[in-house]
């Protein structure tokens, strides 16, 4: 009896210990890179005894869910992932803990990250608040089989007097979009849903056309002639060379059209490259490739940079455990394992890893794409600006405003926000 009581007591004690085991709570987006982490989590839990609870939601819900937790003194998220365009806002509001002391104490090497990644989702004004998690720089997904098709090559040569090949400039790409819109197929599929899908996609058009969002004094310049021409290209592509309804497509719907083999090209986040070869949802396995969005000359690129960073919020209930997790998930081994599962890298050592390149030959192209990409203006009011830009672009696409009117309206609102943020004099 005594023995029985003792064993019961020790079982009870063990349960109590287990119940007190630390848990790291993180809100994450439902994207492929999150699933790779979910697959690797048991390794971390086994090594540290810390449980990790990932709350996975759609992108649109993330900001809404994060803010109330970040505003309070003690929130429920131990660590968070920060989209690049929230960085200015989170920094200004003081919601993230500086990581420099932890980085120095543990000798964590941040020099391995692509410098553009550290600028975007690493440091703000000289202090490290985040570790770059994954990049979603945008690229041009295109159909290699259509380019290699002999009948297409001949027809293209007859029509334009030039060889049909991977486009080197923006104008060449537009010509191909026009050429491939035939026989019930489309030259391009766009993600025209407001606010962020259309705003992010059009940014590539702006850069490809040689435009920029702002000048050195933070004055809006995207309503320049280049910007207007970029929007006109966008409207033509969407309305004349794309499927009906692309003005309401989010990225998943647009990708479905591409992956079902109905469009020659799609400018989108680079993580979709892996999905092209996923036979469970793609009808064009082995027939799609990604490249940087071409620019005005073969030397220039038009891709938009984008990335997520890991941060520890000020309201984190257990920042030490959160740092343990960050250190693990961004360690060379785990970063490489994530890349081998299909993850989008942010570290140069992963991009250059022979094993990763052997498994995913497109890694080199993705690295080039990332190195040549342009940044979106990030400041305190970036989320509002994306909202404004998305609305105005959508108004132009639906024909309710001209390209110039829409961009002028967005530029005026941008300038107001930049003044409010003290960026402009």
């Amino acid at each position, binding site marked *: 009896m005594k023995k029985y009581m003792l064993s019961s007591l020790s079982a009870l004690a063990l349960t109590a210990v287990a119940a007190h085991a630390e848990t790291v709570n993180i809100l994450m987006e439902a994207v492929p890179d999150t699933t790779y982490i979910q697959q690797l989590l048991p390794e971390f839990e086994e090594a540290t005894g810390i449980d990790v609870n990932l709350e996975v939601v759609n992108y649109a819900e993330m*900001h809404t869910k994060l803010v109330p937790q970040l505003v309070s003194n003690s929130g429920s998220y131990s660590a968070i992932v920060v989209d690049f365009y929230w960085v200015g806002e989170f920094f*200004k*509001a003081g919601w993230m803990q500086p990581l420099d002391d932890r980085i120095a104490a543990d000798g964590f090497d941040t020099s391995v990250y692509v410098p553009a990644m550290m600028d975007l989702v690493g440091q703000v004004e000289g202090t490290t608040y985040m570790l770059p998690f994954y990049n979603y720089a945008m690229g041009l997904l295109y159909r290699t089989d259509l380019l290699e098709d002999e009948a297409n090559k001949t027809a293209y040569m007859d029509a334009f007097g030039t060889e049909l090949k991977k486009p080197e400039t923006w104008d060449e790409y537009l010509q191909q979009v026009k050429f491939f819109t035939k026989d019930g197929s489309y030259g391009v599929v766009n993600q025209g*849903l407001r*606010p962020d899908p259309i705003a992010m996609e059009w940014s590539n058009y702006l850069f490809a056309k040689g435009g920029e969002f702002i000048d050195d004094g933070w004055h809006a310049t995207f309503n320049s002639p280049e910007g207007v021409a970029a929007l006109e290209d966008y409207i033509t592509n969407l309305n004349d060379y794309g499927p009906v*309804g692309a003005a309401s497509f989010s990225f998943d719907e647009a990708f479905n059209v591409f992956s079902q083999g109905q469009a020659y090209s799609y400018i989108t986040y680079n993580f979709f490259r892996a999905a092209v070869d996923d036979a469970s949802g793609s009808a064009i396995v082995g027939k799609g490739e990604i490249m940087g969005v071409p620019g005005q000359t073969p030397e220039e690129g038009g891709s938009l940079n984008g990335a997520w960073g890991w941060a520890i919020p000020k309201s984190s209930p257990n920042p030490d455990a959160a740092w343990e997790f960050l250190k693990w998930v961004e360690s060379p081994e785990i970063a490489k394992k994530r890349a081998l599962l299909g993850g989008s890298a942010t570290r140069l050592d992963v991009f250059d890893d022979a094993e990763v390149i052997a498994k995913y030959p497109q890694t080199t192209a993705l690295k080039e794409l990332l190195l040549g990409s342009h940044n979106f203006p990030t400041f305190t009011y970036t989320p509002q600006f994306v909202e404004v830009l*998305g609305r105005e672009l959508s*108004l132009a696409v639906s024909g309710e405003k001209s390209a110039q009117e829409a961009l002028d309206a967005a530029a005026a609102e941008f300038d107001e926000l930049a003044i409010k943020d003290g960026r402009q004099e």
Partner: protein
Amino acid sequence: MAHVTTMERENRRFGWLLTAPGLVLLAAVVLFPIVWAGITSFFNYSLIFPGYDDFAGLGNYAKAADDGEFLHSAWITLLFVVAVVGIQFVAGFVVALMLNDARRGKTVYYLILLCPLLINPVVVGLMWRMILHPTLGIVNWLLGTVGIEPVNWLGAPDMAFWTVVLVDIWHQVSFMVVLLLAGLSALPAEPYEAARVDGATPFQRFWHITLPMMKPVIVVTLLIRMIFAIKTYDIIYIMTRGGPGVATDLISYFIYRRAFVSLDLGEACAMAAMLLIVIAGLTAVLWRSMRQVQD
């Protein structure tokens, strides 16, 4: 004033005691947020810099009243409410009248009709987005089989507005049916018998008996549905995000963005207060109509 006996006083005290927990809970979860939002609406309160040190007076209200986008959202919301409630009422009344006359299978019809109402609005939005996908959705595929060109359900401004209206009708029409049917089944049989004896046609019976007697129920049903329609948010969030352009930018979604994207709580609260005043006005009418029904 009538003399209150000790027993009555005790009864009243006991009544208060029983309702107290509920009242406290309501005050905490309904009254407190409303009062807090009301106070916030008079301050320049942003979630980036939370604090009540910048008093704005009626500034946020003036800003909202002067905001073209906000006024446009209010206008779109009005059109949406009129379209949704109007069509739902006509369709709902016709179905309720038919069901009221049905002799067999009423429960089955009921069950089928109630199904959409039981689905979460977010699921409704996602489901219809898939069904109406212009190139991969089943509706355009079916239309294609009979030679109809693909319809741009959500990508063209006017069409998107009517698509959202139709999806909302599909989702909510049974609410009208249920309420109106309850009213119809409660009507007394005698006037109809008398009318039949006098040789009244079915239309005359409907026009001179059903409609007047149903009036209080109709008013209540329309008002409840209007209040719900003004608050429509989920379907817009899932299906259009207010687009294309600003064609479906309903007011609740607009206010949500002002609060959770712009993080401008002061202005969002002022807008919400203005919306609350409109809804409270409608509720007052509803309350009076309900009293009429009781009397």
